[in-house]
């Protein structure tokens, strides 16, 4: 009996001792102010948890996926890493990501506080392999100076597509500038902006009912969205096919761009900026697309996994997230943060331009969380550009894209 107690004590001592020195790597690609804030937060965490040491390692965003790929082949993965939401399903293919559900259940962690649209990326069979840590979305920016020159109210952005056209035509007529700048350079840049129009018109990109295994954009909403783009260029002639960046140079009055530009535009431009939730059709719904990062754990020893989870739990906690979002300009991933009075007051007072993006959080749709997405997005953008370049009609372009996309998914 006594022996048993000693043994038990011994075992627990060993566990505590071995737990004492858990040292794990955290691969990320946040640079600049974001990277500084992360380092600071990690230091706070390490101080508060003497038994865990998190070591943040910066890897450039362009190579983190490749780096994770080679690491997973050679068995040198970090315990913790982040990636762009759109790459998670691919990384999960390694089969080395840890299911977070048991941890969530054990700690009674409130998962419902996250925006649901963000949680689709971590879903894999019946598992949840990643959690959102940062988010960004798309909205409308407008040039107040050009609005004034065109005789428009500089404080009143368009709320609907109809107003977008109306304002653009007036801008074109009075100032000769482009009314609305479209992203016509192809690839994901074109596709993800177009999706905002599609969702605004009430459509879906891939069919969620079939688990995103079928194209759904060749619908009435899809035709409406693409026809609208076509008309902006060819019918109303308020947009053009040109290199990206007209808005930043003051050559276009309005543009769709990301919440991160709240940081960058003011440094680039010499005019007063406005930001708003992106316009939607009169009979449609407000919508936006979102980007961002999610955090995940690689299969390691139990102690390392537990330590990684402790960090995730801490980092995604409401207070830390408020601190993180305030410092970085990311959009809240949790409803409790977006609705927090202190946070909202802070944004209103110091980062007013960010406010519409925080509000858009609830209108955010998720791009399909599937491996084939990058290819689908690329091919899709090519087909709709064919319509914009007048190589085929709107209907033909969507039909052709549908056939090509379904072919990839079959």
């Amino acid at each position, binding site marked *: 009996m006594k022996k048993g107690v000693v043994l038990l004590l011994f075992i627990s001592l060993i566990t505590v001792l071995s737990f004492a020195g858990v040292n794990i790597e955290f691969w990320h690609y946040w640079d600049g102010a974001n990277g500084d804030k992360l380092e600071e937060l990690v230091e706070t965490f390490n101080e508060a948890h003497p038994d865990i040491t998190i070591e943040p390692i910066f890897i450039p965003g362009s190579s983190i996926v*490749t780096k994770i*790929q080679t690491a*997973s082949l050679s068995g040198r993965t970090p315990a913790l890493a982040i990636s762009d939401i759109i790459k998670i399903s*691919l*990384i999960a*293919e*390694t*089969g080395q990501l840890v299911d977070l559900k048991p941890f969530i259940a054990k700690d009674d962690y409130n998962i419902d506080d996250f925006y649901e649209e963000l949680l689709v990326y971590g879903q894999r069979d019946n598992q949840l392999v990643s959690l959102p840590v940062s988010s960004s979305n798309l909205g409308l920016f407008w040039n107040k100076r050009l609005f004034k020159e065109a005789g428009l109210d500089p404080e009143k952005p368009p709320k609907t597509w109809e107003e977008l056209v109306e304002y653009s035509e007036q801008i074109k007529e009075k100032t000769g500038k482009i009314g609305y700048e479209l992203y*016509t*350079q*192809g*690839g994901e840049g074109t596709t993800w902006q177009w999706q905002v129009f599609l969702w605004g018109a009430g459509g879906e990109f891939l069919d969620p009912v079939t688990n995103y295994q079928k194209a759904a954009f060749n619908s009435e909403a899809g035709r409406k969205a693409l026809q609208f783009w076509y008309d902006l260029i060819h019918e109303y002639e308020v947009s053009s*096919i*040109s*290199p990206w960046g*007209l808005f930043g*140079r003051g*050559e276009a009055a309005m543009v769709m761009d990301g919440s991160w530009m709240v940081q960058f535009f003011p440094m680039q431009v010499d005019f007063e900026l406005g930001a708003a939730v992106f316009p939607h059709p009169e009979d449609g719904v407000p919508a936006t697309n979102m980007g961002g990062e999610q955090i995940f754990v690689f299969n390691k020893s139990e102690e390392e996994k537990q330590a990684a989870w402790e960090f995730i739990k801490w980092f995604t906690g409401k207070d830390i997230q408020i601190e993180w979002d305030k410092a970085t300009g990311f959009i809240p991933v949790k409803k409790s943060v977006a609705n927090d009075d202190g946070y909202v007051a802070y944004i209103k007072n110091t980062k007013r331009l960010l406010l519409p993006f925080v509000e858009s959080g609830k209108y955010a749709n998720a791009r399909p969380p599937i*491996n*084939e997405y*990058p*290819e689908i997005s*690329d091919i899709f953008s*090519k087909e709709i*550009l*064919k319509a914009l*370049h007048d*190589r085929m009609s709107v209907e033909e372009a969507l039909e052709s894209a549908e056939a090509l996309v379904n072919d990839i998914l079959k």
Partner: protein
Amino acid sequence: MRNLTSKSGSLTPAFFRKEQTAAFLLLFPSILILGVFNIYPAFYSIVLSFFEWNGFSPDIPFVGIENYKTLFTNGVFYNSLLVTIIYSVVVTFGSLIIGLLVAVALDRDIKGKTLYRILYFLPVVTPTVASGVVWKYLFDPTQGIINTMLSYINIQGPAWLNDSAWALFSVSIVGIWKRIGFCMIIYLAALQGVSANLYEAARIDGATEFNILKSIKIPLLSPATLFLTITGFIDSFRIFDLVYVMTNGGPVDETDVLGLMLYRNGFEYFKLGYASSIAVGIFGILLILSFVQWKFTQGGEAY
């Protein structure tokens, strides 16, 4: 080895053996590096072209010739092939003709000819990515130098890289610009080999400069022309970086060269097997071109 231990019975065998050992030892580092970083990956990509793999998943199913079937029944491949061929033809012959004219012009005693030669050769040694970025600015439809200049003489320039009809041509201009210097150097070297007596005789017979160019220089330069044609094709067939920086294949797919298609499938879509089959395709085409070169130049002897 057996042949080397010859019947002559001299000291040669031992000597040869020693020399071979030394040669092997000296070559070993380069063989090792080439083997690990060039030869092994090249063969591995041939193997990989028969599999389907996204680079992440632990299962790598064998799919036989499925990737090649997809490749050869795919409109995207034929578009890329056509774009690459057009680009190669325009760049190869464009740079060849301009390079010849520049070489002929600089093959005489004019003031500052070394400076001119250096200026024409500079683009060859300028990094492709840097050239691409700079040219992209020059081609900008509203703020670029080219269209600004054109507007002075009341010409509304095209949108260059953003215009379906002009994009491939615009990229080719940069390709030509980068290659003129190389063609010039080869032609200059070849012109040194043409005897001055021929020109003199022609002039006595009353030939004009144009006659000399047409009837003496061009025919005598034909081995250089052949060499430049073939290397031109091989070089421009592998084009990737310039297009990647300038248009990324656009507008739509007007400048989507094979190298870009390969890159996209391998590193954006993570379809490593399919990307490998494209690589093998490009390799096959280049192999044929090299064979043609070998054949026409009698194993490189003619040049």
